[in-house]
């Protein structure tokens, strides 16, 4: 295969990954890794490096819009970034010593968990008053909705913080945004409204992924020739996905992709367990 053909295949695969990642809400990084490692036989280390770079691009790109609309809570994001960046650096260091097949199996498991989680019904809740610690840390805010400005508080700061460390470690170890875990930490544990949780999670991903990406770069995981088509492809795919989501809410499509992703994840676990990755 020539470099040109290889690059075009990578670009097409990355576009599909960005599209599926955006439609399912899983993020492009989590879809591109099995695509590169299972189908194209690229060493999982390079796949993880490229995925991390694409996570930075897509999350920063989409965070831009939400920040300007005032939905993202920058204080909550900044506070929890202490947890995710520490986790991310630890995760990136673990990735350099962890055996490859273990990474593949863990990745598959997280992928299945995220796919299932994306199908879960979300309950809408707004916490009126914050816990004392949350008040001290100014972890409250307001965001615009169609019915006017909604004020919200938070609680369980320590639980959310610990969960964010786990999210950071997995992000650094597996090269993903780990959006599902971040949203669980904010929405389920800290009781932050879902919309604020998802947008703030997105906002945090750029810094979290960068914290581990610079470690990856120094260890040689990041190959410019692989990264270029992957990052551009994932970003364009994600933009297309966002356009589709504005027009329709693809319930059935989401289920279909969740199944596809689960199969991909099982293949990855199988490859990992049998030592083929």
């Amino acid at each position, binding site marked *: 295969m*020539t470099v040109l053909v290889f690059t075009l295949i990578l670009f097409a695969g990355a576009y599909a990954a960005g599209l599926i990642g955006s439609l399912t809400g899983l993020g492009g990084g989590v879809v591109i890794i099995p695509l590169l490692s299972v189908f194209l036989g690229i060493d999982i280390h390079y796949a993880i490096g490229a995925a991390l770079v694409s996570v930075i691009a897509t999350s*920063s790109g989409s965070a831009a819009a939400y920040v300007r609309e005032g939905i993202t809570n920058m204080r909550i994001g900044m506070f929890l970034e202490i947890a995710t960046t520490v986790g991310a650096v630890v995760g990136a260091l673990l990735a350099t010593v962890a055996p490859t097949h273990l990474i593949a199996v863990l990745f598959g498991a997280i992928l299945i968990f995220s796919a299932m989680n994306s199908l879960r019904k979300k309950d809408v809740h707004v916490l009126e008053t914050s816990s004392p610690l949350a008040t001290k840390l100014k972890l409250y805010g307001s965001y615009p909705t169609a019915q006017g400005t909604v004020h919200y508080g938070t609680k369980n700061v320590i639980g959310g913080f610990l969960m964010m460390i786990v999210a950071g470690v997995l992000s650094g170890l597996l090269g993903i945004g780990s959006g599902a875990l971040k949203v669980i930490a904010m929405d389920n544990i800290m009781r932050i409204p879902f919309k604020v949780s998802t947008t703030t999670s997105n906002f945090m991903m*750029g810094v979290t992924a960068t914290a581990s990406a*610079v470690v990856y770069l120094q260890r040689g995981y*990041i190959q410019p020739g*692989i990264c270029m088509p992957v990052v551009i492809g994932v970003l364009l795919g994600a933009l297309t996905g966002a356009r589709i989501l504005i027009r329709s809410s693809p319930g059935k499509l989401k289920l279909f992709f969740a199944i596809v992703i689960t199969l991909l994840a099982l293949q990855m676990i199988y490859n990992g367990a049998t030592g083929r990755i």
Partner: protein
Amino acid sequence: MENVKDKDLQYIIGNLLRWGVWTSLGIAFIGGLIYLSRHGQEVVYYPKFVETDRDMLTILKEMLQGIGAGRGRDIILLGIMLLFATPISRVLFSLVGFILEKDRLYVCITLIVLMIIFISVRGGLG
């Protein structure tokens, strides 16, 4: 008053993120075209992953030399570096914002985040 400053900060950070992403990808794309025009017809060869241990300064120095020599891969790397710089400069802008708002708690929190990033740039204590 505080709210007005928050809004300004949101606007600046939103634009920073957007421009950061598009500029870095634009540069990476140009680098990609140069890379493909030079090596497009060669056979793909990515040997099994070998871990390296190069510090950031060496990587930057080699990248600049490569760009001077018109190497596509190093121009792509420049784009990737700018992409890394985007969220980091977002944190720096937040720091300025919190300083202007005299929010000492969040100035401290932001400094902690910056310190962690600095540690990872230095190779993560390794």
